[in-house]
């Protein structure tokens, strides 16, 4: 791709570019620091930056947008080093967590703002701007709302106006900060499907920040998991769920129980009993075995790898969740079919059927 000068107008319409973050480091006074982040977002991809609060995910997004500056490292758009570009020249579409709609402007004026503030030489004509606004209102299904003010819209509608406003400038990439964070559960669900749809239609390279693993796994092509300013893993939803790279990813993406395991000759032992889990050849000695609730099968007391007392039976959708308290007082949960005959107060054994091995430490 040809280099774009900082003042160049919108380049290569419609062609998605990749985003490359190289060695980005930011030491903050408080939390949300970043340590040497390398990340590539593929052209046209929908990538989720997933992590708990304070993990640095929003900081990374703001550095990509040019809203914050890294202490070290670079940001590339389609091979072009944008690190020194001021935010105005980065041509990013940024959707803020609380939308940041201009309260004193109508919906149409909000959407058209980015076009109106362009220098005269590449500012579209008034009729062109109007055409573009109505096109975008169509896209976000808000036709007829152009004269409303932000205060007269629901949360979901504001979110859509914010997205239309970001898309109006035909950005190189689309960046969304907790796009559904401020919405209630029902609206979130609807907007997820809708965002996926918009992404497919515009084909923009899109990064969104979220702390909700369901949202990330359901929506994104790939998920980048951040923890304490470090990138733990980047991969497809299947990869991060089935092959978590670190214990953090394992526990953050769902319920998990940790067991101490002993590894000898590629065989995994828990409490001296063999577990049928593949262990890396190189791992020897003490290790951690992390299991999901469905990796543990209830068996007769005295059998299995672990023993415990049933202290709770709850229904969860089409399954039962069984709460088991171990001898040392720690609790864990396993799954059982609805028609299970397990009852509170029973002693049971637990058979480990699957899990993920991590080296100790």
């Amino acid at each position, binding site marked *: 791709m040809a280099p774009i000068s900082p003042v160049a107008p919108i380049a290569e319409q419609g062609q998605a570019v990749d985003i490359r973050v190289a060695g980005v480091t930011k030491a903050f006074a408080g939390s949300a620091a970043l340590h040497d982040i390398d990340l590539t977002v593929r052209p046209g991809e929908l990538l989720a930056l997933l992590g708990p609060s304070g993990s640095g995910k929003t900081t990374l997004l703001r550095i990509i947008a040019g809203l914050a500056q890294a202490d070290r490292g670079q940001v590339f758009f389609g091979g072009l080093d944008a690190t020194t570009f001021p935010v105005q020249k980065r041509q990013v579409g940024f959707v803020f967590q609380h939308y940041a709609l201009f309260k004193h402007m109508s919906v149409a004026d909000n959407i058209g703002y980015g076009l109106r*503030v362009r220098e005269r030489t590449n500012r579209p004509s008034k009729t062109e701007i109007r055409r573009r606004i109505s096109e975008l209102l169509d896209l976000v299904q808000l036709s007829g709302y152009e004269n409303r003010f932000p205060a007269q819209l629901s949360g979901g509608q504001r979110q859509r106006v914010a997205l239309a406003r970001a898309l109006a*400038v035909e950005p190189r990439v689309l960046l969304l900060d907790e796009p559904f964070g401020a919405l209630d559960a029902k609206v979130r669900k609807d907007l997820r499907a809708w965002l996926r749809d918009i992404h497919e239609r515009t084909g923009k390279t899109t990064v969104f920040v979220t702390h909700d693993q369901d949202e990330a796994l359901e929506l994104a092509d790939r998920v980048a998991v951040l923890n304490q300013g470090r990138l733990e893993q980047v991969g497809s939803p299947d990869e991060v769920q089935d092959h978590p790279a670190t214990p953090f990813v394992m526990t953050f993406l769902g319920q998990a129980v940790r067991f101490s395991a002993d590894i000898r000759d590629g065989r995994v032992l828990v409490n001296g009993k063999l577990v049928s889990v593949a262990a890396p050849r190189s791992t020897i000695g003490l290790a951690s075995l992390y299991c999901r609730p469905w990796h543990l099968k209830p068996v007769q007391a005295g059998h299995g790898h672990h023993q415990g007392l049933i202290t709770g039976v709850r229904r969860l959708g089409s399954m039962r969740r069984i709460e088991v308290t171990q001898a040392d007082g720690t609790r864990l949960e396993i799954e059982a079919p609805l028609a299970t005959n397990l009852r509170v107060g029973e002693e049971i054994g637990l058979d480990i059927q699957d899990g993920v091995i991590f080296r100790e430490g």
Partner: protein
Amino acid sequence: MSDLSAALVLTDSPQQSVVTESKLIRRLAISIALVFLLLFLVLPLVVVFVEAFRRGLAGFLAAFQEADALAAIQLTLTVAAIAVPANLVFGLAASWAIAKFEFKGKSLLITLIDLPFSVSPVVSGLIYLLLFGAQGLFGPWLMAHGIKIAFALPGIVLATIFVTFPFVARQLIPLMQEQGTAEEEAALTLGASGWRTFLTVTLPNIKWGLLYGVLLCNARAMGEFGAVSVVSGHIRGLTNTIPLHVEILYNEYNFVAAFAVASLLASLALVTLALKSFLEWRHGADLAGGTHR
């Protein structure tokens, strides 16, 4: 029997709410407050206008046909026309720096901006005399170069700027802090320049608070007495502002003229209060964060 006594207690005060006082107490409290306010606030205001028109409309108008009165009005307008915009620009700059950025010593800066409010008006005048008066720090140098600050327009303007210094800034700082930076950031990502962002995004959001601050600043600038009295030198027709002119008329026992000219300032105060109340009523939410005072 016990049922009956319970019923009696209930009927004793059937509509007594638990969250307010009895009717009698309420009426008493309202009456005391009203009499107090009447005595202390309403009567002084009324007396100004009554005294101003004691000799009818002709007597009232005569006060404004004097050359000294006109000169005083002109001087006051001139002073306000310099001092208010100066503090307006300062208020915008200070609130932008303080509200939109993080830096060390911010709360100290805010305290320093508030400082002139806790300085006596007379002292506010005095400190400029200590700088620019004949015995002041820069006095001899100024005299040698033929520059007059004390007992002249520049001194009056400086003293007025000092006493009205915090008005705009203290109105805008909390307002802009509350609004945060997200809208400005959004404008920047959409390609707007910094100046454009300020004009099209920040300014519309603070315009009512700004107007409010300017109103209060202006009322004080036009009405300032103590500070201006010290630096003006009371030169009739030259360095007398409206309040100083009122003082002179009053001390000469020219009461009708004194109150006539004073009624001009009282009217300004009333208009200010009315606009202020209107702004609070109409745009209360956009003034939020601002405090009274």
